[in-house]
């Protein structure tokens, strides 16, 4: 072996993850409590992985109140992320929340490019348990176009029986096939999967397909 060789990681690479979370009134009680526990678990799991902690970059957007979409946690590296404690009340402005998320993603990419930081394709997790209360079609159109242009990967997650699968499908370039239905309130399993997937994606290299675990642990098998 050659003596006195420094071996350090000079990679500057980020994997952006945006969580767009429904905090409307219908999420109150157990659902939002379990969602908060899931977020805390995500924080903990990503911080335990030395590479993911440095590379995964998280933004949390919540929507509810009086048709408001707002940033609950601004962009930060997973190592600096503290899970928010979300509260549920108000309406369901799904369209506005997704538009905000897509705009934030492109701004973050611009900052990466200006700083010479390489990045992987951003993931957008869109979670909803009900019917949108805003004019969501424009946001859905933007989302489909962005995904088709390979600007982002979108994962719509339907929570509970009241979620509108058809509407969520319109936020995915794969339509309703792109929607996952959460089993019961298994947010814990969902966020464990998300954390494991982020660990894989943040370390993936060109030409090697990222091997992601099955979503069977938390999503209902489509019928």
């Amino acid at each position, binding site marked *: *072996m*050659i*003596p*006195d*060789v*420094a*071996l*350090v*990681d*000079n*990679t*500057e*690479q980020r994997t952006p993850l945006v969580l767009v979370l429904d905090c409307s009134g219908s999420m109150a009680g157990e659902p939002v409590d379990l969602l908060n526990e899931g977020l805390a678990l995500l924080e903990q799991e990503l911080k335990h992985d*030395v590479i993911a902690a440095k590379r995964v970059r998280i933004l949390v957007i919540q929507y509810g109140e009086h048709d408001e979409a707002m940033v609950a946690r601004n962009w930060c590296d997973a190592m600096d992320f503290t899970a928010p404690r979300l509260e549920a009340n108000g309406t369901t402005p799904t369209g506005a929340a997704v538009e905000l998320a897509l705009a934030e993603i492109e701004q973050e990419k611009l900052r990466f490019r200006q700083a*010479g*930081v*390489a*990045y*992987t*394709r951003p993931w957008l997790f869109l979670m909803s348990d009900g019917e949108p209360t805003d004019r969501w079609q424009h946001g859905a159109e933007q989302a489909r176009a962005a995904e088709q242009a*390979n600007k982002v990967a979108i994962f719509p997650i339907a929570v509970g029986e009241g979620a509108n699968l058809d509407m969520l499908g319109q936020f995915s370039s794969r339509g309703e096939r792109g929607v996952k239905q959460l089993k019961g309130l298994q947010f814990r399993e969902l966020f464990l999967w998300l954390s494991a997937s982020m660990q894989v*994606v943040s*370390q*993936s*290299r*060109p*030409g*090697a*397909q*990222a091997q992601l675990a099955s979503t069977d642990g938390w999503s209902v098998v489509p019928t």
Partner: protein
Amino acid sequence: MAATDQADNGWRVFGASVVGKSHLDKGLPCQDAHAHVSAGESLVAVVCDGAGSARHSELGAQFVATTLAQALARRLEQGAGIAQLHDGMLMDCVAQVRGALEELADNHGAVLDDYATTVVGVVMGPSVGVFFHLGDGVGVAQLENGSELISLPANGEYANETYFLSGERWRDQLRLLPIPRGVRGLVLMSDGCMPFAMSKHNAALYAPFMSAVQNYLRGVDDVAAGNHALAQTLLDPRTHQITGDDKTLLLALRA
């Protein structure tokens, strides 16, 4: 992995391709390859990184590295200059090798994509040279005036995607970078080495790694011993914290 022979034209060339941690864990072979050939006063060197997702990418990388280096050396021996290579001949050589790879795939009931590989290489004469580059990896020329000329990776938008010779748009993606003056050293590497052999943003060779390697190799008597030490260094378990990928480093030093 091609043999790395002592060049007799004023160059000493060292190279190693080693299997990465994630490939070890999955029982995959090393999908990187390197080759070099000297032609008169010139040197041709190529590093290829086979796609992890392609079935026969280790064969693709070996085939392309070896046959492309030989094809370019043959052109030089037939009297071609760097300028001619730059103005079309290099593209012809790559097309010829890609065609031969397609034939190889046909003969094995496979398709070209099964042999997907990136290419980063250099043709260097006494006073000028040229990098050729498709996909990721890095080429660095250490110029006589002390500065570095870097052929950077081009991956498209995302860091975990890249271009391959098997791709349909390979002609658009193959980039040539002229080296306008003589060099003291040349370095080619696959992307597995980039995190520790390049500094942040690939702005330069990372001296705390590269100077130690080059100083050591300048002092060894025997190229085989130097190659062995280089391979052992690339296999250092400390690299497993940095990358799970295969790692190739090729260094050409002016004697």
